């Protein structure tokens, strides 16, 4: 059986690292390109940074030094760990709400018509706009931060789920009905497995949105986390710290995405239908 991520699979853009997506065969090993672009970026960055003060535009060397210091004394791990835990919890809450809501919207035209005005409106409102309400409603503790992350992850997951239900192959439902299946059987045997790849795709996008929320979530009433670090370091003009936190956030996101794809591939090797595209 061909591997899922081979060049002809419609899955490759979902399941393969994005930098391996090329037209035609790539003669170089896959790690060459990201390394090359990182070196190029560092070179350009060094040149540019030489013209500014460290409090305006820190050089790669200054950032590397700061990264070493934060890694050695453990602060970066502590902040990253707290943000990761928050993201995981907020994402899980958002997904746990979004999947049933998306399924219900897809299955019930009534529910969809009732929900759509809200989903269509609020998905354009960024988490930062909701920070004040989050604090008033959920207090200064963890709940308000989880709310903001869940809020932002919710929309893409719910909408992808709803779209997945709408795209269920009609003849598969008819097949199950004419094999003696009930409505419940069609939901379990056809709709749910058909929707899985849409939910996974929505989750991947939702995870990106959750990450994009972390700074907003940790902007107020937080004393740890990468978002907090970015925001508080700014007040001391520690731009090197800001860059370290940004890089850590990006790497954390990349790792989370890779892990998510690897798990999805393992769990749904056969459940994922072939026709599903990016």
């Amino acid at each position, binding site marked *: 059986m061909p591997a899922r991520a081979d060049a002809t699979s419609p899955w490759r853009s979902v399941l393969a690292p994005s930098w391996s997506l090329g037209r035609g065969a790539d003669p170089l090993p896959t790690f060459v390109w990201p390394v090359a672009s990182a070196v190029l970026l560092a070179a350009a960055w060094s040149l540019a940074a030489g013209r500014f003060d460290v409090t305006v535009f820190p050089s790669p060397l200054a950032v590397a030094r700061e990264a070493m210091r934060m890694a050695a004394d453990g602060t970066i791990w502590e902040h990253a760990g707290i943000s990761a835990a928050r993201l995981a919890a907020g994402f899980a809450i958002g997904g746990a709400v979004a999947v049933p809501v998306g399924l219900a919207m897809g299955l019930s035209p009534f529910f969809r018509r009732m929900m759509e005005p809200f989903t269509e409106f609020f998905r354009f409102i960024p988490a930062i706009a909701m920070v004040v309400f989050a604090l008033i409603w959920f207090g200064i503790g963890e709940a308000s931060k989880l709310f903001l992350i869940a809020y932002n992850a919710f929309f893409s997951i719910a909408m992808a789920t709803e779209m997945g239900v709408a795209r269920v192959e009609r003849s598969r439902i*008819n*097949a199950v009905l*004419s*094999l003696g299946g009930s409505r419940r*059987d069609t939901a379990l045997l*056809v709709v749910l*497995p058909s929707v899985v790849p849409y939910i996974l795709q929505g989750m991947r996008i939702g995870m990106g949105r959750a990450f994009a929320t972390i700074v907003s979530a940790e902007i107020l009433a937080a004393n740890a986390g990468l978002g907090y670090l970015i925001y508080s370091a700014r007040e001391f003009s520690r731009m090197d710290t800001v860059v370290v936190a940004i890089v850590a956030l990006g790497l954390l996101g990349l790792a989370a995405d890779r892990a998510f794809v690897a798990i999805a591939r393992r769990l749904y090797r*056969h459940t994922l*239908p072939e026709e599903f595209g990016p």
Partner: protein
Amino acid sequence: MASAAAEFSGVSKAFTARGDAPAIENFDLRIEEGEFVCLLGPSGCGKTTALTLLAGFDRPSSGSVLHRGRPVAGPAADRGVVFQGDDSLMPWLTATENLLLGPRIRRVPLGEQRAIAERLLALVGLVGHGDKYPRELSGGMKQRIQIARVLANEPDMLLMDEPFAALDAQTRTHMQDELVRIWSEARPAVLFITHDVHEALILADRVVVMRAGPRSAVRTAFNVEAPRPRDRSDPRIAAAYGEIQRVMAEEFRRARQ
């Protein structure tokens, strides 16, 4: 009179959402128990509409559709449907899992399910392919799985909507022979839709030709007396072919007007 396997009387079906003329109007057709009927007609003549009503996927606008004397209230396991393409197979299930959907829904014990799968894979000539997924099977193999999936329910009626239309000529001929063999064993009543005159003559006890749509109904019917398995070069088949082809050509012309 004993009740027929299926009976359409005065059936009309209009798709009101589209506001068009009814696809079929005053459609009458009786299918006897164990009879193999091919419904033939130009595209857009409402063949599939008739099948959909008997399957129970849709309701007639007027008239009655009976299965063994009882009005069709919805889809049920006693009328197995073989769909045109292979979209109706679950791509996330293996061939065996696909063909066991009916028994699984009926909560047949697992040991019995294994026996059913073994018997049916042998019947449709797919021994050794049970663990493959649909995307790993050829078009002909996928249609056999669809047929096996329906047979697993032992329906008294088979509804087949151009099941071999997407296959290459060689595979199609082979599948027709296989279908005749399978049908001779189980003897369900069959409503088989096609626009291929030859296919109808190889398969059917009776070939029913529909008029061009809209407002289509049965134009005429031919009994095919030749014994099975039929030889495609049988002079009786050739003679019937000429006659049906002439009627079909007329309807095709009308369809284009």
